[in-house]
């Protein structure tokens, strides 16, 4: 392979300074984060009373946001591990996008669960008094494990790229140069280092699959281990996992489109990537639809008394608009768009991905809240406001702030590091040329 070609790839993929758009975007996200932080300070001083949650709906959009984050983070394992192990080479340019989405989402999943706690000052009790019988402790364990595996899967493939970044001293500022050196100066590209790194990535790719399944299965068990109608389901683990892969794949398509158009990566993220990811998204949407049919049709056929109010509330009652909106935007419309070859071109695929992500967020809300409004004993002997739930501005601000925070991490990561692996792209291009 010619040096000029290598140089071209490197030039194309090196991280670029924020343009005007980038700066506005970062400022916008930062403002959202700051508003969320202010809302959280209010919550810290006044207590959870600033939220719309009360004794019946004791979990609200914080928890649905948590489930959403855990769900979206599963894509790291799908793209990096599943596709890597099945030798789907085309996914190489997407691995880092998927992995940074996973890391930032899982970070904010942990933060949002602390936000939901009544006594965040006692967080350490989880470690000094933790009871292994509680599904929350299972979640703490697997989420921590998943976070570190994802971080390593992000870091190891980054090492050769850091080496490249260090070569372009004139392209970076002092502090970034120090950061690259701190993270990657030990990497000398020796055959032994490459061998170790490759083995490590292989081991991590295999371990992350059961861990990824665990994080979302355990998250589903936070609900399914209770007796409540709508949660008391053996379908929940698979239902959550399939939904998680769907929203994660949707998020990757969205990120692919944004990075591609913003950083002019048309040569690296091609039509073929959108085509393949589009097909995957259709398959995942169909799978999720299948689990939804299981989840709702079977209890609806029996209409047990305890389930009836809950189900009718979703189908035709107060939650019906959100319910059908979520089903249509997260599954049916994206399927209709992406089954056509034309629909798998970048722009329509981007729109389909966006619909999936938005629909999925509301789907998580529907999993958490309506159930809590249908307890076994009727809602009684409580103030009237306890019988309804609508998030307050503080909750919206914190939830939106956390979403903005996750996007901010991804944005800043793409500013500092190459979002498409340079080294791997070069080696793969070389291999193709040899063949």
């Amino acid at each position: 392979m010619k040096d000029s070609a290598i140089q071209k790839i490197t030039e194309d993929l090196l991280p670029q300074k924020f343009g005007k758009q980038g700066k506005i975007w970062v400022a916008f996200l930062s403002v959202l984060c700051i508003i969320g932080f202010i809302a959280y300070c209010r919550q810290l001083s006044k207590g959870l009373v600033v939220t719309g949650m009360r004794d019946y709906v004791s979990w609200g959009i914080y928890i649905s946001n948590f489930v959403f984050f855990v769900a979206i983070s599963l894509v790291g394992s799908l793209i990096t591990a599943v596709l890597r192990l099945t030798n789907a080479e085309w996914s190489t340019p997407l691995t880092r996008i998927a992995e940074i989405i996973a890391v930032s989402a899982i970070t904010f999943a942990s933060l949002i669960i602390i936000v939901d706690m009544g006594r965040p000052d006692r967080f350490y009790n989880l470690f000094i008094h933790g009871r292994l019988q509680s599904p929350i402790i299972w979640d703490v364990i697997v989420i921590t494990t998943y976070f570190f595996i994802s971080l390593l899967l992000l870091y190891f493939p980054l090492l050769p790229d850091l080496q490249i970044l260090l070569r372009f001293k004139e392209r970076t500022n002092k502090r970034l140069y120090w950061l690259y050196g701190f993270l990657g100066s030990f990497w000398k590209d020796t055959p032994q280092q490459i061998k170790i790194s490759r083995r490590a990535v292989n081991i991590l790719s295999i371990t992350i699959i059961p861990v990824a399944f665990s994080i979302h299965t355990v998250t589903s068990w936070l609900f399914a281990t209770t007796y409540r109608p709508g949660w008391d389901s053996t379908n929940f683990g698979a239902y959550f996992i399939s939904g998680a892969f769907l929203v994660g794949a949707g998020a990757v398509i969205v990120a692919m489109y944004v990075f591609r158009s913003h950083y002019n990566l048309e040569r690296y993220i091609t039509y073929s990537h959108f085509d393949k990811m589009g097909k995957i998204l259709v398959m995942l949407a169909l799978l999720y639809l299948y689990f939804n049919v299981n989840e709702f049709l079977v209890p609806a056929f029996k209409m047990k008394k305890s389930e009836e109010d809950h189900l009718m509330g979703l189908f035709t009652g107060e939650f019906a608009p959100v319910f059908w909106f979520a089903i249509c935007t997260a599954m049916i419309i994206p399927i209709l768009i992406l089954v056509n070859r034309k629909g798998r071109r970048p722009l329509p695929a981007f729109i389909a991905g966006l619909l999936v992500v938005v629909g999925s967020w509301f789907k998580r809300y529907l999993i958490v809240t309506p159930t809590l409004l249908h307890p076994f004993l009727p809602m009684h002997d409580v103030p009237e406001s306890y019988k309804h739930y609508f998030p307050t501005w503080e909750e919206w601000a914190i939830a939106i702030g956390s979403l903005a925070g996750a996007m901010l991490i991804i944005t800043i990561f793409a500013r500092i590091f190459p979002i498409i692996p340079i080294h791997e792209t070069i080696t793969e291009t070389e291999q193709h040329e040899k063949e």
Partner: protein
Amino acid sequence: MEIKDNSRREFIAAGLLAGLALAGCSTKKNPFETDTLEEVKPSGVMVKLLSVDGKVIEVDKAFLKPVPELPAIPNDIARKGIAGKKFVMVIDLSRCKSLKKCQAACNHMHHIHPGQNWIKVYPMQDAEHTAPYWEPTTCMHCDEPPCVKVCPVDATFKRQDGIVLIDSDRCIGCRFCMAACPYSSRVFNWEDPGVPEDIAKQPYSCETSVPQKKGTVGKCDFCPDMARKGELPHCVSACPNGVFAFGDMLEDTVTNGSETFRFSDLIRDKAGYRLMEDLGTKPSVYYLPPVNRNFPFENNEGKEEGKHS
């Protein structure tokens, strides 16, 4: 009966030690020393006391200082519970007319946040053509408590005497127990519960559930502090109609204060049952069906609730 003896003995011992301290038989570092060290003149009236090692001794009355309240049971002992007891409650639905004296007494004694209730009195009607009735609910103190199963930090726990309690000093406020409880018996302190200052200053006791704390879960505790004193829970003694009967299953006795029943006979004769038996939670609260009622069912709550909101 044993409980009472113990508490009297502790009372005496504490009083005795305080008296000895005042008499000046100890150094200044004595923990029982009071702030205002007054001169005490012997009154000449002698009192017989039981000493810590079981001997009867005589002390001048003037040396004794009454202890106003026994100190609360330390929380590590409160976690274990009272040995040889299995507390149960029987709620007789035929006697309830939703006076809510139980609720008021409970709210008052536990300093619960206004508007929230640990005891709820539900107007129930199981099906369209079945008779309506009032159903007071407390915490069911299940033998297979779903709340305890899910608690990540062991803040809610099951004791050997069957009572399920909460350690508000440990609770992290995740509210998983509230999601897990099918009886909706748990409430959360969404804001500062507004406990009077002098009570809020007290150290938290698992047995009294006082003081309630912001950001933690609260619920009916079966008043084990009262049981230690040999007295009935506040709801039981507050009810003028004798709806609640409380007692020890191992003694096979429950009482509502004025009447005492053999528990097994009562449950057998009146066909007692427990709520949501199919869930397998094994509650410690039994219900007697609303037959041969003392009062007709009158629901005037609609108006009343309007006032609250």
